């Protein structure tokens, strides 16, 4: 009798304790969200403000220009060989002077995985990955970069 009464009282006290603890936990949660409500949003409002990309960011490709304003690519085919997704198409021609020149050079950016291996492999540092990540279009064909567009993608001097 006495034991069951004591048990009941103990049960009651435990229940009250649990209740107070859980209400306290709820209030703690409310305090956290309230403080977050007044904190500054971390959103970068994209079209107006742009995120600074990392120094080693691998964006869209471009051709480095030589002093004549043309590509310094020697059409060695190393980038074609190393490209894991095989998205580079190169048609090389032999020049009269003995050098090689890329008659056609296309990067299919739909397939490209932006690994940067082409830039790693290039012996003359002709192809590089730039910092531009805003590259969208309506048709797949427009996402294939040819030589002219690769040259145009080069970052402006200075």
């Amino acid at each position, binding site marked *: 009798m006495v034991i069951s009464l004591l048990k009941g009282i103990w049960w009651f006290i435990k229940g009250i304790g649990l209740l107070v603890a859980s209400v306290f936990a709820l209030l703690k949660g409310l305090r956290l969200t309230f403080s977050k409500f007044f904190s*500054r949003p971390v959103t970068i409002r994209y079209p107006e403000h742009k995120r600074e990309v990392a120094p080693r960011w691998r964006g869209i490709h471009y051709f480095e220009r030589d002093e004549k304003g043309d590509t310094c690519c020697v059409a060695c085919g190393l980038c074609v060989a190393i490209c894991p997704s095989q998205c580079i198409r190169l048609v090389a021609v032999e020049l009269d002077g003995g050098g090689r020149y890329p008659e056609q050079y296309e990067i299919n950016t739909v397939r490209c995985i932006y690994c940067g291996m082409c830039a790693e492999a290039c012996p003359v540092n002709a192809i590089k990955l730039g910092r531009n990540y805003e590259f969208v279009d309506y048709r797949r064909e427009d996402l294939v970069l040819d030589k002219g567009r690769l040259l145009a993608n080069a970052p402006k001097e200075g």
Partner: protein
Amino acid sequence: MELIYFLIENIVKVVMVFAVLMGVVAYLTLAERKILGRIQVRYGPNRVGPFGLFQPIADGIKAFFKEDVVPARADQTLFVIAPMISITAAISLFAVIPFGEYIDFLGRRISFTIANLDIGLLYVFAIASLGEYGVVLGGWSSYNKYGLMGALRAAAQMISYEIALALSVMGVLMISGTLNLVEIVQQQAGWHWNAFYHFQFFPFIFYIVCALAEINRTPFDMPEAEAELACGFNIEYSSMKFALFFMAEYAHLVAVCAIATTLFLGGWDGPFNLPPALSWIWFAAKTGILVYFFIWQRGTFPRLRYDQIMRFGWKFLLPLTLANIFGTGLYMVLTG
């Protein structure tokens, strides 16, 4: 002649309340998204107009021009009627709520209540439980397993919490001795707010919790539990029918906050006296704070499990609200 004045007065009041309510509901959807966004350390909608202020208009236009789909095997009649029941019940609640004291206009004293019913509180509970039919019928008639489960949950949950909700305001009822909402507010004039003056603070908390369950808000949003039921009772609804459910939800939210203000927080009574024609400002401020709390807690608490909700309602809230009736009785006997 008096009858015509009466008619004009009431029509103007109804149109005013309806217009203001619809505006509030529209901007409440924006406010909710904004506040939730801020709580989650982001901006919320800010593209349409300055600070996203035209977002509700864009949403309305979008909802209006969406394709209106009725499932082939749905119960066509009930499917169409369900959202109407929801919105009608939610808006009808505002008929008895005293927004302010009175205004003297063209030699007439016009009160800020549309219908000053002697059984105002009873009316509120009757209409509020009618609103459940919208949710239950909507889910049931749409011939969808998730809709049906949402409807079942809505029925069970709302009935459970309706009891605790009604019991939690019994203390106020005993103290004021009337069901007339205007008189209840008048008795609380001069800081004698029920929530603080007559030891009705805990019933106030119970009322808020039950109201959350009653309007299917987040810790208790079993009927539409996005994660488990994929929007539950309104899963098959599109276009304006969905918009009606959506508006009903927010109108109901404003309604329960307004009733909490009326019953527990002294209605139009404020820290200092405004002229009677402006007393609605206090009412709006208190309701606004409660609405903010409802949105704030939505950004804080996760959804409970179904059995937890049932256990909480029947084994915790119900005994405590009953104990409150006993305690209030004791208080009334002791203080006379």
